[in-house]
Every structure is written in C-alpha cells, then in structure tokens.
C-alpha cells in the first residue's frame, strides 16, 4: 500500500484559520456574556433558550463521533475529506461537558419534576426523575462520550505515525459496539434533557428523532466545512464532485428521515387522540407556534428535499453549502419548537418571545466556543488521515 502524502494547511489558509478561530472565540464570549445578563435578569427565560443552543451543538458533536465510527465500520470514499473534520468536531463534546454545568444548576427552574416530585398517577416516574440520579446519568453520558471522542481522535493520530494497522484495527473492533452505545446513550440524553420538560408525556421515537436531527445538522455542518476547505491547497483536490455528491445524498436521506420520524410521532398521537398525549402538540400549535409547524413542514422538509434532488447542484461546494446553511437554520427552528413551548399554558397560549430571541445568542455563544475548539483541533493534524486502511483503499480506487 502506498503512503498518501501529508496534507496540511498552507500559510495563507493558516492565517485565515487563525482569524476565524479568533472571531469564533469572540462570538462565543459575547454570546455567553449576553446570556449571563439574561440569566441574572430572567432565569426562567434563560434556561430553555440556553438548552436550545446546547442541544443544537450537542447533536453535531455526537453526530460527528457517530459518523467517524460509521466510517471505521464501512469505509468508503465519502470519508476521505471528512474524517479529520468529523474527528475534530467529535472532540467538541469536551467543552460541551463544561457548558452543560449551567443546565445542571438550573435543573429546578427548567424541569417541573425537579420542583414537584411526581406523585399520584405519576409516582412511577419518581425513581427515574430523581435529581441526583438525573445528574449522575448526565455525568455518565459525558464520561462515555468524551472517552469515545478521545479514542477516535488519539488512535487516529497514532495511526498517522506508523505503518502497521494496530490503531485502525482497534478502532474497527470498537466501532460497532461503540456506535450502538453512542446512539442509545444519545437517545437517553435527548429524553432526559428535552422530553422530561413535560414529564407526563412520552414518545418512544423521541430520542431517535433528536439523534436523526443531530446527524442531519452534522452533515450540513460538514458541507460548510468542505466549502471552506475547498479554498485550501492540497485538501481541495480531495473534495471531488463524487464525494460532494455522496454528502449531498446523505443530507437528502437524513432530511427525509427527519420528516419521517417527526411525522410518525405526530400521526400516531393524532390517530390515538388521547388526552394525556395530545397536549404536547396542542402546546406547539397555539399562540403563534402554529406558524412554526407550517415552517417546519415547508422549510425543514419540502424546501431542502427539492433543493437536494438536483444532481448537478449536489456536486458543487457552493450549492451544497447554501443548502446546508438553510438546513442548519431550520434545525434551530425545530429545536426551538421542541423546547420553548414546553411551558405554554393551554388556557392562555402565548408565544415565548423571550426564549426564542435569547435562543440566538445561545446558539452563537455555545457555537462560538465549539467552533473555536473545533478549528484548534483541525489545524493540529494532517487533513487526511495517513496509513488508515479505509482511507488508503478509497484513495487507491480513486487513483490518488
């Protein structure tokens, strides 16, 4: 097997990267500063808004880790330009673990079950929705996700420096079980942190729905990363139309999967028409939220669906990055719709203006920190893994 050349940023790109990283840090600090002010003034508005920003970037961190594991399992040419960006994005779970602390502090404000222990007909919920158990679970998730992110990063770097395939093989062995546990634990995380905002409502597809949304965000974020990287010498030759096409098809598939999951949950609850299930949807379709429902149908599903049907478009970075930006905006809209109306009062439905507006600095603030961390990881390693069996095989098939 031939050894692929080592590709890293040239001087000009490195400077651009430094600027970008600095700007991201500034955006992060400013965003979090705004949120700190909001926290002092109106904590009950702050917490759900912060949760929106947190869940958005959490989905990308875990989605990236999942896609790296997937590439170790199945290989394929799509991973050649994406492996290193995905590995770097998986590492953002480390700052996110610290950024979870405000949510742990706000547990009593955010979750009704933490203030009033479930009793009566809902007593069976109390062992699971116990504050210390809840926080212990969160800590457990973060330990597992961080270890996984470290494993896929450190072993992948280790592989760069050696010609035997021991680290790659190690990753190949853990990838299958790790992907299963990652998906399961992410589903548990989504249920714990978002679904229990309304503890009396349950949906078995809810965790998977958020995981699929996170994967869609990840693919969209990677399309934007590739658009940026396509201006850098060396890596730009690896971003071929075929690989962009693969990424575009994955985005299309996950757009459809998101719609499928979201609609299945609705259809089942709508058909059942049970009084303990439908309030979740009633809260999300009154007081202005009905516009979000229409926006989600048309702009989260139909628009990206038709945009991503275009074969020629999917083979160009600019077109794909525009579609990706659209999808990311709609991901924030979706998370806002899932989280902000949780406290909507059905007798006097209101639109949660404060939470929706504060959601923007939350996404920017958490995102600034994550993006800065991502860039600092990305520039430290060759942009295409060296000596990785899957990557080498893909490069040989493509003739370099």
């Amino acid at each position, binding site marked *: 097997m031939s050894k692929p050349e080592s590709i890293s940023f040239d001087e000009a790109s490195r400077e651009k990267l430094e600027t970008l990283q600095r700007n991201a840090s500034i955006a992060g600090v400013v965003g979090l500063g705004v949120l700190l002010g909001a926290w002092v003034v109106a904590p009950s508005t702050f917490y759900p808004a912060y949760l929106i920003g947190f869940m958005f970037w959490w989905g990308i961190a875990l989605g990236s880790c999942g896609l790296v594991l997937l590439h170790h399992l199945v290989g394929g040419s799509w991973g050649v330009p994406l492996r290193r960006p995905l590995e770097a994005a998986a590492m953002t779970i480390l700052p996110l673990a610290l950024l979870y602390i405000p949510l742990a502090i706000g547990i009593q404000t955010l979750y009704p079950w933490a203030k009033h222990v479930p009793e009566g007909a809902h007593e069976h919920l109390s062992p699971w929705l116990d504050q210390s158990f809840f926080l212990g679970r969160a800590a457990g998730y973060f330990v597992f996700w961080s270890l996984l992110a470290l494993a896929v990063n450190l072993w992948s770097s280790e592989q760069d420096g050696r010609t035997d395939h021991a680290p790659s093989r190690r990753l190949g062995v853990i990838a299958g079980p790790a992907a299963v546990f990652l998906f399961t634990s992410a589903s548990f995380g989504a249920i714990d942190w978002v679904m229990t905002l309304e503890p009396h409502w349950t949906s078995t597809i809810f965790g998977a729905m958020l995981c699929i949304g996170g994967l869609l965000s990840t693919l969209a974020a990677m399309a934007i990363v590739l658009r940026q990287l396509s201006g850098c010498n060396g890596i730009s030759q690896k971003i071929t139309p075929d690989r962009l096409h693969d990424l575009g098809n994955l985005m299309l598939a996950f757009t459809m999967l998101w719609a499928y999951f979201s609609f299945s949950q609705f*259809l089942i609850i709508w058909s059942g028409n049970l009084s303990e299930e439908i309030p979740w949807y009633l809260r999300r379709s009154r007081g202005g939220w009905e516009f979000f429902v229409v926006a989600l149908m048309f702009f989260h599903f139909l628009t990206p669906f038709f945009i991503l049907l275009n074969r020629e478009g999917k083979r160009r970075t600019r077109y794909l990055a525009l579609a990706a930006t659209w999808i990311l905006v709609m991901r924030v809209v979706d998370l806002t719709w899932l989280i902000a109306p949780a406290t909507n009062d059905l007798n006097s439905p209101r639109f949660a203006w404060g939470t929706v507006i504060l959601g923007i600095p939350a996404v920017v603030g958490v995102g600034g920190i994550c993006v800065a961390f991502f860039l600092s990881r990305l520039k430290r390693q060759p942009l295409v893994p060296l000596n990785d069996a899957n990557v080498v095989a893909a490069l040989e098939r493509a003739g370099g």
Partner: protein
Amino acid sequence: MTHHETEAETVYGIMAEFEHEEDVLEAAEAAYARGYRAMDAFSPHPVEGLAEAIGFHKNRVALVVLLGGLTGGLSGFFMQWYTAAVEYPFDVGGRPYFSWPAFIPITFEMTVLFAAISGVVGLILLNGLPRPYHPAFNAANFATASTDGFFLCIQSDDPMFEAEAVQAFLTEFEPKSLSVVPL
C-alpha cells in the same frame, strides 16, 4: 455528395474494437475533439468518463422519475380525499372527513411506487427498447461487448462522416479490429 448519401443508406458506421478501457476512452475523446458527434461506445462495465467523452451529458430519466413521483403522490392524495371526504364520507372517531394526516402514508407510498415504476419503464423506453434488431450487432466480435471487449462506433449519420477518413482516424488508435457495420 451522392457518394455520402449512398454510404449513409447502407452503412451504419465504423466500429473499432479495443482491448482496454483506457484505449476506448482515448479514442472517444480524440474523436469528439476531431468534431465527430454521432457516435456510441459499448463496454461490458461502466467506464468512468466514457459517457462524457462521447458527448453524452444528460438523460431525461431523472425528469421522468420526478414526474412519475408527483403523479403518484397527487393521485394517491386525491384518491383518498375523493373517497373519504366526497364520494363516501365516513366518520372515523369523530374526526373531520378530510383528515389529511391520515392520508400521508398512502400518498408517500404511491409517490415511491410511481417514481420507481416510471424510473424502470422510462429507462427502458428512453434507451429505445424493446428493439429486436440493431445494426451494431453486425460488427465483428460485438458479442464480447458483454464480456471483455470495448467498442467505439462512429455513425454514418454524423455530418462529418466519410468512411475512408473515419477508418484512417480510428486506425491511429491501433484497435484490435475495425469493421464497417452494415445497416
């Protein structure tokens, strides 16, 4: 130009046989650069870049699939609306007759079904099939196009077609065999 016309009436084209895919690709690119447009290439497996080399860029299968999908989806939705809300209104648990969420699964399935069927049928028809006779099969060794032979045919309906010139041109690429294909 009587010479040209009689040729066009009796000759389908000049077929060159190659042993390697790189050779047929090279010949196709050169032929296109020379100005030949009416040509076709045959290979036992898809050769990357060959379709582009003979100037074949776009087919209408995607459009057929899109139209098929839209037809299926709309007719599926219409069928349910018409039967459940107009022709035979039926009360299901007190829900409105026009309960669109319940119509979505069938609409989706009909979209997929019609898109898939129109894809297959469109592919066959756009390829000019079924077609019991094709002059290309008159070329020497043409059966190997299904196993290990690569072929390039410059057709007589090309405005630039002149049998001797085409033969001389294709000979430059040292084909394994070269034959004049009768209609």
